[in-house]
């Protein structure tokens, strides 16, 4: 390879890094986000092209892999339903993680006795990539409903995790000092297996409603794993791109934790309200006041401003299209309609926004919690659709409540609150919700989609 070729390849990597940075920056603004994504994709294309110039003695394997991967990616992205987006994102994230693990393994396989720092990077790529992969697979299973969304706790879970991590560390130390030989290879494979198990065991105890935190964190891991792969290959573009993703994932994780008023450690290790013993009963006094769809129609018909607060229940009932239709009818009826979305509503960061956007709700109507709370007292009707913990006033009022201190959407301050709910069952956190028995709250029991459709029908009849 000539010096010129090498210089061009390096320039390609620099260009790719810059395009990633610009792309991520543009992803933060709605008007430019789509272009930003394309720019970052262009960066990826340049990086791959540059890599093709220096990677390969033999292109058969490389081309085979690229073609198969592209086809799978293309078909998956085309056919996936918007409602399945959380699990799709989890799955893709896991794939990035396993790729980094395999890069580490392939490197160890061909050069077990490379220099010390590279060996450490290999082990990090295997550990972080492995956790990102198997953790994402478990998250995928939970989000797709293939395994229970409830926290699954094994006895002495924390102890087992610590022991596995310790085994990984001891094995890694061994490999750092004795990299070659059959025994060393065995230890390496053991570390691969342990890393994968560690991912499984760390995500199974985490419940469905904490998924936004976990997904954001796993996103960060897959970035850091790519960064570790960069240290193996001594390649800057992997390090830059990987650490950008690592940082962004960590920030999202922080935002999600803050929105639940819990520390990361608490989310990861507590198995929140897993056992029946943990669900603190705050003995809420009072009776919920159920009303019929017809009465709810009269309330909505008279409303001048309506705030709709969706939660995971809306996603489960697939009610977003019906909700948008109702929203439009209310607007035509002269009401001002907004959608207030809690940062951790749903199962991934921004889940509700994606669902409502899919149903053609305008971007301007999607409001953040902090924009809506100050004006809540002037809102005529607040419609809570399948949300529970994120609107639970116990977070504000009851100090003994497990969710005390969590920022919530103050729906109870609206003049009237309509709560659409399947039954009186407690929310994910297993905490009683005093909202349901407040003076200004009316309960509309039933499937969210069916109820909203009834309301739409009422409007159309009149």
């Amino acid at each position: 390879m000539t010096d010129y070729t090498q210089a061009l390849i390096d320039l390609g990597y620099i260009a790719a890094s810059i395009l990633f940075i610009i792309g991520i920056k543009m992803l933060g603004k709605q008007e430019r986000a789509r272009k930003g994504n394309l720019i970052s994709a262009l960066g990826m294309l340049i990086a791959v092209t540059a890599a093709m110039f220096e990677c390969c003695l033999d292109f058969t394997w490389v081309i085979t892999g690229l073609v198969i991967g592209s086809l799978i990616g293309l078909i998956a992205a085309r056919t996936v339903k918007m409602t399945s987006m959380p699990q799709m994102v989890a799955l893709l994230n896991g794939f990035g993680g396993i790729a980094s693990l395999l890069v580490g393994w392939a490197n160890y396989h061909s050069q077990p006795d490379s220099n010390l720092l590279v060996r450490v990077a290999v082990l990090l790529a295997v550990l972080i990539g492995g956790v990102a992969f198997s953790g994402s697979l478990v998250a995928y299973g939970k989000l797709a409903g293939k395994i229970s969304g409830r926290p699954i706790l094994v006895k002495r879970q924390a102890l087992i995790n610590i022991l596995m991590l310790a085994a990984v560390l001891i094995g890694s130390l061994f490999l750092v000092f004795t990299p070659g030989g059959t025994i060393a290879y065995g230890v390496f494979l053991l570390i691969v297996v342990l890393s994968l198990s560690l991912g499984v065991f760390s995500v199974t105890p985490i419940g469905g409603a904490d998924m936004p935190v976990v997904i954001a964190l796993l996103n960060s891991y897959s970035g850091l794993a790519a960064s570790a792969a960069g240290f193996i290959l001594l390649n800057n573009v992997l390090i830059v791109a990987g650490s950008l993703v690592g940082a962004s994932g960590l920030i999202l994780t922080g935002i999600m934790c803050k929105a639940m008023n819990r520390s990361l450690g608490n989310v990861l290790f507590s198995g929140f309200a897993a056992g029946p013993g943990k669900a603190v009963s705050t003995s809420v006094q009072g009776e919920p006041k159920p009303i019929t769809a017809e009465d709810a129609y009269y309330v909505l018909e008279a409303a001048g401003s309506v705030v709709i607060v969706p939660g995971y229940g809306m996603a489960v009932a697939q009610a977003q299209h019906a909700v948008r239709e109702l929203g439009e009818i209310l607007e035509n009826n002269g009401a001002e309609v907004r959608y207030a979305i809690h940062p951790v509503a749903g199962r991934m960061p921004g889940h509700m926004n994606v669902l409502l956007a899919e149903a053609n709700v305008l971007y301007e109507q999607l409001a953040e919690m902090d924009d809506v709370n100050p004006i809540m007292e002037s809102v005529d009707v607040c419609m809570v659709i399948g949300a529970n913990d994120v609107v639970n006033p116990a977070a504000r009022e009851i100090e003994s409540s497990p969710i005390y201190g969590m920022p919530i959407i103050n729906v109870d301050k609206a003049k009237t609150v309509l709560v659409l709910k399947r039954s009186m069952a407690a929310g994910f956190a297993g905490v009683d919700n005093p909202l349901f028995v407040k003076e200004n709250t009316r309960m509309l029991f039933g499937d969210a989609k069916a109820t909203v459709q009834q309301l739409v029908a009422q409007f159309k009849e009149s």
Partner: protein
Amino acid sequence: MSFGLLFFVFVLAIFLGVELISKVPSQLHTPLMSGTNAISGITIVGALTAAGSGADLLGSILGTVAVIFATVNVVGGYLVTNRMLAMFKRKSGEQK
């Protein structure tokens, strides 16, 4: 390239990432996540190197499987993000 320099780049990029992300509206959290997720598929560069290095059979297979996974991550990630972002519409209505 020396390890120290690589580490320097790593730390700077982390800081840059923090600066870039800290002001993203929550409406865009999902596309941001899947968009950055596609970027983490950059590990494909490592996978290509591993698959094409002309190593023995197992080495090549490991590399090729890595290429497949990383490519799915990259292609799927960008397309899915694009699909999601195309759904966010404004009143001033540029319907693409």
